[in-house]
């Protein structure tokens, strides 16, 4: 007698923001196998980048690979082009770029935490974090003029400046958010029902994290020292107080704690930037066309994002390869699901913070 059942999640499912299909092979509610289909969002952006758009417009196009880390996408792309053209941008532009990158990380991590809570059936917490996240969204709207797709970074610098009044407003809002985050910290560590749901669930061991090349918070929660912010020098991360977070348990709880700690670290970095913002231009016109190959990586909220760009000196690029965070985490996901309880699946899924829209591009 065959005892397993297939439980599909997706492509449309309330626990998913995006179309992705997991098929869980379950014995009763215990998952014994996972099959995933991630190709629903495939739009053909890589192809369009080499046939449809000129290199200077691509920054806005690749931002639409993903709405959540749009800024990281345009940042990474822009950095590769700047590398190929050659030329330095101002220190102030670099700082502003980091500011937006970190703000984006804050709102994305908050979204992920709230989403994890919702999928764990904790609606109140979801609402609480989503409510507080609006503060960050307001800051972003004030700086860039849009809540989600910032279109803030252009080749040569950034598009808008921050004046002193705005900086002050942001600082006060960030302080508010910091207090709130400390409150979540307490909730995530002390709530009994959350610990039933999160502790010891969805474990990725250190060895597996290495073997499956896990990245981002997923890897750091298992104890891998993998944070691209530590491995690059295009942006002066070390000057503004970046600290790598690490945990060793590798369960959902550890991932949440990593995110919470990163929130605090990011808020601190934003404070440092706003307080020590150098004077200067925000935009340098870069002359010339890109030529050659470059590989550039950045740390998106979900882990490492990589662009490979090959150009031949004309306005059309030869190849744009986008390696996105969720894409490279998928083998690790499938591994974690095996052996878990189906009732935990949505929470585990949310704790990876997957984003399929970039996976399929």
């Amino acid at each position: 007698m065959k005892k397993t059942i297939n439980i599909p999640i997706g492509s449309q499912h309330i626990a998913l923001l995006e179309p992705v299909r997991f098929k869980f092979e379950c014995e009763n509610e215990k998952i014994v196998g996972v099959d995933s289909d991630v190709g629903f969002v495939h739009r053909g952006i890589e192809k369009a980048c080499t046939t449809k758009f000129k290199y200077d417009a691509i920054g806005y196009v690749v931002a639409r690979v993903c709405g959540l880390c749009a800024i990281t996408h345009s940042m990474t792309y822009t950095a590769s082009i700047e590398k190929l053209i050659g030329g330095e941008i101002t220190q102030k532009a670099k700082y502003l770029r980091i500011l937006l990158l970190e703000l984006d990380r804050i709102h994305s991590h908050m979204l992920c935490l709230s989403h994890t809570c919702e999928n764990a059936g904790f609606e109140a917490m979801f609402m609480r974090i989503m409510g507080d996240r609006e503060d960050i969204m307001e800051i972003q709207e004030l700086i860039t003029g849009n809540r989600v797709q910032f279109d803030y970074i252009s080749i040569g610098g950034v598009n808008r400046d921050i004046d002193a009044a705005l900086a002050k407003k942001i600082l006060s809002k960030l302080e508010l958010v910091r207090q709130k985050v400390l409150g979540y910290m307490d909730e995530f560590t002390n709530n009994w029902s959350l610990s039933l749901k999160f502790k010891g669930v969805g474990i990725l061991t250190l060895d597996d994290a290495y073997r499956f090349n896990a990245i981002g918070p997923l890897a750091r929660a298992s104890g891998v020292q993998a944070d691209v912010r530590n491995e690059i020098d295009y942006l002066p991360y070390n000057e503004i107080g970046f600290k790598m977070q690490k945990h060793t348990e590798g369960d959902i709880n550890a991932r949440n704690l990593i995110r919470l700690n990163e929130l605090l670290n990011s808020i601190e970095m934003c404070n440092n930037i706003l307080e020590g913002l150098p004077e200067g231009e925000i935009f340098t016109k870069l002359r010339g066309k890109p030529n050659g190959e470059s590989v550039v990586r950045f740390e998106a909220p979900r882990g490492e994002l990589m662009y490979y760009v090959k150009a031949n000196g004309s306005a059309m690029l030869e190849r744009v390869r986008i390696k996105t965070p969720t894409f490279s985490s998928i083998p690790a996901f499938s591994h974690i699901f095996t052996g878990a309880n189906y009732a935990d699946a949505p929470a585990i899924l949310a704790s990876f913070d997957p984003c399929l829209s970039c996976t399929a591009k």
Partner: protein
Amino acid sequence: MTTYSILIIAPLLFAFSVLFGGLRVRNVLTVVFVLFLAGVSLTNIFLVSSSTQILFSPLLHYLFILLDSIVLIYFLWQGVIKKHNLVTFFALLQMMLYAAVVFFSSSITSSDILIDEISSTMYLVINIVGGIIIVYALGYIESEKFSRFKKNGFIALLFFFLSIMNFIVSTNNIEIFFLLFELTTLCSYILIAYHGDEVSSENALKALWINQIGGVAILIALIVSITQYDTVYFDMLINNINELYLLPIVFLTIAAFVKGASIPFDKWLLGAMVAPTPVSAMLHSATMVKIAPYLMLKLAPAMSGFVSLSITLIGTFVFFSASLLALSKDYFKEILGLSTIALLALMMALAAIGTKEATTACLVLIVFHAISKALLFLQAAILEKSFNLKYVNDINGLINHSPFVVLFIVVGFASLTLPPFGAFVAKFMAIESIANEIGNNPLYVLALIFIALGSVFLTLLYFKVLTKLLAKDVSQEKEIHVDIPKLFTVPSFALLALLVMGVYVLYEKEFLTTAQVFVPVVLIAVVPLLFATLLFKKAHRVKEYHCGEKEEPQLNMYYFEIARSYKMAITVVATVLILVLILGAML
């Protein structure tokens, strides 16, 4: 001639005559004879108002001793040729003990036959339900690949079985009771091994040796009873019993546990599944296992304090655990089997409580359980013969193909759980009487918890099965037509009629109020029809929601895995409880 002797002798004679003769003659004769038996057992209720008492001549007693010896020798022989050490051992043990019994033999005499209300009720169950089972066995056995003689022999054996059962509920003599007990063991042994293959014979031997434990227990009880109370009669034993020395009662109880396949003696009943389905039906509903509650009821007046409590606890514990175990099964007959074990244990527990309410509950349960189980096994036979289905998991959407079978299964299960049927009333009364007992002894709280959990598990179990039947696909419109022989459908309806009559009797005797009878009926029958006509015209059919996917996910039944360690623990606890019972009675 009194009715009881007709009931005992007529089936015996008929059994011999049915051995020969062609198909048509046999079928017609059998149906007529079954009707006759039913009639006799019904008249018995009205004729025999007070209890009948009869003493057998010594000659008859010698005949019984001879028969007993032959049966025991046959067991020994089977043990030796089948090389089954346990069978051999128990056969030898029984021979020794039996020799001791014959050697001691008591001097005081009482009536050998004693018919009271309980016996009359049992006659009804045995003859009417058993008769119906034999009728459908006629249909069943035709499709087996046996020789003509073996087919006739099968029917004959069933009648033989009826005769023994009728005798067993009439007798008052424990020696004769022992003989009949062994004869039922023998019958079941032959019936289980009827297919003649490896598995059958193995399971038959298993049934044999486990049942022999019961024999041993009876013999010990006999020896103790003769040495202590100098009697071999139930009534005298019960009347003279000393509160402090209940050992014979306890050993007889153990015999009941064995026959009732109570855990830890449950293996034989499940093994009996390999026999042709009517045999299972026979064993489960009307005959064999019913000896257990019957014996309990008979002994109940003699029980007191500790013994009563521990039997109640054992019974309710087994009720709970068997229901739990049944949840993990997928084989339809096995589910039915485990639920039989559970309900039998409940009956024994109720009998052991011994209050009037509990005894009534027990009797009601005996009757309704017999009818419902007969009905369900009949459906199992139909599933097997007409649809080739044995596993619950495979019966998905049966309602599309045979609404009647589904109806009967639904009714069968409903009658074991839901108002207004008897099993529900019994459970209801059980809770009430146990709640009363808690005032006397707080330990009954445990029994209450077991009953509460067990009844929930049983409900779960039945509805787990039911859920499979109803699934209907939108797209699948074509139906397969399956012929169900008349010999299956007619008994089904007969059993259904019995159920309804049972409810009516309950209502007459004021176990149920009008509202309690009619509300569920209205809910189950009238409401759906009403709404169906009102609403369905407008409704559109669509497919189920599969997250937007077109591909249908694979559905399978949920099963409740029960860890091996739990199973072990259940057996151990049950065994320990029984040992405690024996030790407690000894001290």
